[in-house]
């Protein structure tokens, strides 16, 4: 039964541009996909190793800027710029991972915020590299041979590939010995150490993969909107990511994707009704309500509800 649902879902996803041709809806789906990758990346750190990073906008931005600059200034192909962006962001993740070894809880959160803050200030002030607040317009769209992936329907497939890749990586990690080590770190670190789990190694691994994935999202974003500015470091993005993961269900695989879809579609729906400030206000209130009423998130709540219904 599950197999059938999965197969159907995959079919729908693969043929989406054909039955959802409206460019506005395609845009929403593409953005949901990009945020889905971001949410999956944050979830790896927050949901599995239990470290809250509020600096993921920093990784997102590094990925976006690296990819944009390599294709704009050095005229590299997108297909080369993307892995480089991922690699550079992964390196930044390695740095954060090594920092995390000394810090836990609130202190780690503060360092991640500071990291994002410093990167943000650099992108605003280092005019020669990043063009400062004016940003980098004209980021080229990816090309696959003779075809340009500029059109939304084409870019959708690129994003779908990105989401699928990220999901598969997460699923494989989580279901393995590595995923168990992550959980051990989250649940009881001293106990994990006592049975031989090398804390250093696994925290750094989680940070590197998480950051690299966020960099992937950044690159996808840069070549979709074709404009990168210091606005990618806005704390709003981090907050949105956190809400997506927490609301969807941290520590699950489907949770972040559900959260991403919900919180990309919701603002668009709200935008038609009211202004952006009300939307952010609603986010704040929603976060508080979630912590009180659905502390584990939507996906686990649904799973628990289904279990209660079928004893």
């Amino acid at each position, binding site marked *: 039964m599950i197999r059938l649902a999965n197969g159907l879902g995959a079919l729908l996803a693969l043929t989406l541009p054909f039955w959802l041709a409206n460019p506005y809806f395609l845009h929403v789906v593409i953005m949901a996909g990009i945020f889905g990758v971001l949410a999956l990346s944050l979830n790896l750190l927050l949901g599995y190793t239990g470290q809250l990073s509020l600096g993921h906008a920093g990784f997102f931005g590094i990925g976006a800027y690296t990819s944009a600059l390599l294709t704009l200034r050095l005229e590299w192909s997108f297909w080369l710029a993307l892995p480089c962006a991922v690699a550079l962001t992964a390196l930044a993740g390695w740095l954060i991972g090594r*920092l995390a070894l000394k810090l836990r809880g609130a202190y780690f*959160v503060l360092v991640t915020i500071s990291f994002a803050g410093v990167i943000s200030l650099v992108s605003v002030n280092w005019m020669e590299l990043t063009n400062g607040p004016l940003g980098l317009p004209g980021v080229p769209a990816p090309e696959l041979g003779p075809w340009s992936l500029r059109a939304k329907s084409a870019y959708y497939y690129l994003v779908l590939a990105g989401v699928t890749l990220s999901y598969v990586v997460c699923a494989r990690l989580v279901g393995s010995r590595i995923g168990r080590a992550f959980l051990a770190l989250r649940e009881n670190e001293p106990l994990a150490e006592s049975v031989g789990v090398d804390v250093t190694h696994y925290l750094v691994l989680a940070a590197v993969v998480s950051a690299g994935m966020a960099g992937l999202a950044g690159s996808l974003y840069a070549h979709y909107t074709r404009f990168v500015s210091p606005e990618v470091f806005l704390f709003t993005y981090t907050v949105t990511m956190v809400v997506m993961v927490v609301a969807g269900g941290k520590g699950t695989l489907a949770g972040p994707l559900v959260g991403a879809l919900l919180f990309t579609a919701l603002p668009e729906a709200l935008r038609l009704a009211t202004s952006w400030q*009300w939307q952010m206000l609603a986010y704040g209130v929603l*976060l*508080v309500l979630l*912590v009180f009423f659905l*502390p584990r998130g939507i996906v686990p709540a649904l799973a628990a509800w289904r279990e209660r219904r079928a004893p």
Partner: protein
Amino acid sequence: MEQLLQHLVNGLVLGGTYALLGIGLTLIFGLMNLVNFAHGEFYTLGAYAAFAALALAGVNFFVAVLAAIAAGAALGALCERVLLRPLRAESIDTTMLVMIGVWIAMQNGELLVWGGVAKSIPHPFPTEPLVLGPVSIAPLRVFVFVLAAGLIAASYLLIHRTKLGRAMRATFQDRDTAALMGVRIGRIHTATFAFGSGLAAAAGALLGPVFLAYPSMGDLAALKAFCVVILGGLGNLPGATLGGLLLGVAEELGAGYVSSGYRDAVGFVIIILVLLLRPSGLFARQERIG
């Protein structure tokens, strides 16, 4: 040399208010084990409260600051009672998330009420700067420093000379024993949060007229407050005071000699460096850990 002195003086004025922010947060963070990401929003609240008092009600400046403190403390107490007390058994991650939610809600609430355009807060002081030897300083800033110093002194008195303060210190040192001794932990939490938020609001009311008031002013303030807490060590009042002054001076020197664009980076960099090199704070006594 004169420039250096000028920077130092400016830094001390700024630092005094940073100390207020830091003292409030170190008490909250230290005693309640709460990562109060909404701390900056009480700062903003204070600034807007002062604006309302001065521009709209036309009261005198001193009263405006008091009004701001009252507003901050009241909202803080409410926040603690309604949102935090039910979650007291939860982990630090959960309460952190709630405070993030409050942060977002408050900031966008301010945005909706006051609009996004920065407001200039009127003050009764002459704009002609006082010249004291090689440095010149605006009378407003003198007032700010004096008031900040006064509030810091008042905080010390509260913590060390009153029954409430003693109860707070006991709870910070050993919660269970304090509870067994009859200290009402719930009340202490509410009082601590209200006190800390009131100090943050005071800082906002003091610095608001010096700069401008706008809805996102609290973000950087919050970060600087955390910076001060990290510099001084958790729950360490003299550390927070010194840390605040240090940060103010460091920022002024950084802005003056390096680049004004990177002024705010000073706080970030300090956070990163201190947490890497001396996580217990510059002024805390080193505990031996395994």
